[in-house]
């Protein structure tokens, strides 16, 4: 990338260094407000969770710092079920998202022609209605006398008199729905960039369609698959709206625990400890992803 203005004429030496200093100052001025905002309202708060988690006390008398490290084993032994459930639900939903989104993304990237942008728009459009309203609509759709249950029953997927709402299926379906665009868009981006001639070359050389797909398309779409998986899996771990509105306490995830401990019970240290654990897990996953695929490629696939 060429630095803009690098070719500007340079008069006297003194003026030149002053100019260079001013030029170095400009990006600093540009980033200072934004970075300060993120530092003060993102980075420091996330680290503060550790500080809050080690306090003891109660909401009435306040909390004091006692470096109570026991909060971590205690909270984990009490809520490991929700934590594992969150990972399980998030992983299942991510897989479902991939299964639904891959053919969709493939269709848009390869077959949709001049309607590409329209289809992309259609993918994100539903998400411009309120998340809560959408989830309430799923409540309506999945309700016991709704037609979806009827269809599932006639297909034998749900027992006669069985239900969808307030089950694990409903919660996972809700999460799948919510994060579908986060899977579909990176997949689309990588499939769209894929050079179709490579696939043609493979089939010309007598590879079957399936072999060509497996050996050419999938590996070349890997960055998109990777980015989509991360963008779906990580936020899904923290989701609690779907469990709240489509499930019962038996489907509650770690997000439900964090929000109820923070806002309802007001046991701040436990809530902070759990959210700090989730954040550490996320950072580990991200670090592994960057190690595996490289930050440049990952962020490109994620945002393109």
């Amino acid at each position, binding site marked *: 990338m060429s630095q803009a203005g690098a070719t500007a004429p340079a008069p006297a030496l003194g003026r030149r260094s002053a100019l260079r200093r001013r030029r170095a100052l400009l990006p600093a001025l540009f980033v200072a407000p934004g970075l300060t905002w993120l530092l003060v309202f993102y980075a420091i708060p996330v680290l503060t969770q550790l500080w809050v988690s080690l306090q003891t006390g109660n909401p009435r008398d306040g909390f004091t710092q006692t470096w109570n490290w026991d909060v971590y084993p205690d909270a984990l032994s009490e809520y490991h079920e929700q934590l594992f459930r969150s990972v399980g639900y998030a992983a299942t939903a991510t897989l479902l998202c991939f299964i639904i989104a891959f053919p969709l993304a493939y269709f848009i990237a390869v077959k949709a022609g001049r309607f590409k942008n329209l289809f992309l728009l259609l993918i994100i459009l539903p998400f411009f209605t309120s998340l*809560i309203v959408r989830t309430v609509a799923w409540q309506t759709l999945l309700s016991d006398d709704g037609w979806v249950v009827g269809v599932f029953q006639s297909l034998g997927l749900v027992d006669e008199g069985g239900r969808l709402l307030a089950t694990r299926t409903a919660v996972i379906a809700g999460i799948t729905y919510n994060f579908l665009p986060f899977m579909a868009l990176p997949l689309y981006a990588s499939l769209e960039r894929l050079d179709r001639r490579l696939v043609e070359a493979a089939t010309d050389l007598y590879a079957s369609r399936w072999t060509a797909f497996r050996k050419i398309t999938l590996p070349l779409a890997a960055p998109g698959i990777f980015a989509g998986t991360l963008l779906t899996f990580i936020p899904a771990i923290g989701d609690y709206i779907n469990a709240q509105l489509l499930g019962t306490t038996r489907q509650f995830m770690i997000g439900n625990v964090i929000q109820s401990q923070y806002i309802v019970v007001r046991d701040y240290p436990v809530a*902070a400890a759990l959210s700090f654990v989730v954040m550490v897990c996320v950072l580990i996953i991200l670090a592994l992803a960057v190690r595996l695929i490289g*930050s440049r490629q990952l962020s490109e696939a994620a945002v393109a």
Partner: protein
Amino acid sequence: MRTRADKLRDLGVRAWAILALIYLFLPIFVIAQFSFNDNRGRFNFTWQGFTLDHWKDPWGVPGLQDAFVTSLTIAAISTLIAVTLGVFLALALVRYRWPGRGVASGLVFLPLATPEVVLGAALLGWYLTLNFARGYAAIVIAHVMFTLGYVVVTIRARLEGMDLHIEEAAMDLGANQLTTIRKITLPLIAPGIAAASLLAFAISVDDFVVTNFTAGQTTTFPLFVFGATRQGVPPQVNVLATGLLVVVIALMFVNLAVQRRAARRDQRAMAQAGA
């Protein structure tokens, strides 16, 4: 050469894509449909007949209008701040090399990869530690924080797709950096800024999780709806959600048209420059 298997596979992919789109729009149809439901009683779960009453009286539920206006105001303010900060961040990240650029871009993107519940919990813990009052300002701060990354991503994409020669030409003709940014760069990335604003606004208006942690006594539209789920969501909520979607669709088409015109203008300019 297309065999029958190829055609069948094409058909399969096409059918799958259409089914996926139907799945995506299923709840949207339900939302729109139940905005016309002549529901008796508090709940709006079963279809009982068509009425336009809720559309004629969208504010007929106490507290709904206040919540809606609060949401729009918060979204407008935080979008304004986030886009202002984001334009300069994106400029610095794309157009300049400086020490710490990698770390800075990590800090910009990390909030995008953080589960919302962690963002909310972290901010609440921070506000509690500082004894900072939750409410209006606390929500705006939060919304700017988590929309900033989206703004930078959107504007960065536009900046990277831009022809550097135009900026270089301006500087060669004696314009200083600020003038170049003001007269050349900003007008050229205007569609990107518009798209980023739309995105930030939409994310902010819709946010529930982080807002729930930072709101205190303030009620936004998503918080109002969530609170109403226990006693039954009034159909007016469906009216507003449907209306909002229609506005967003209209804005998207406007943005698309403007971008198309800008692209054509760019092309013409390039053709003239080449001639």
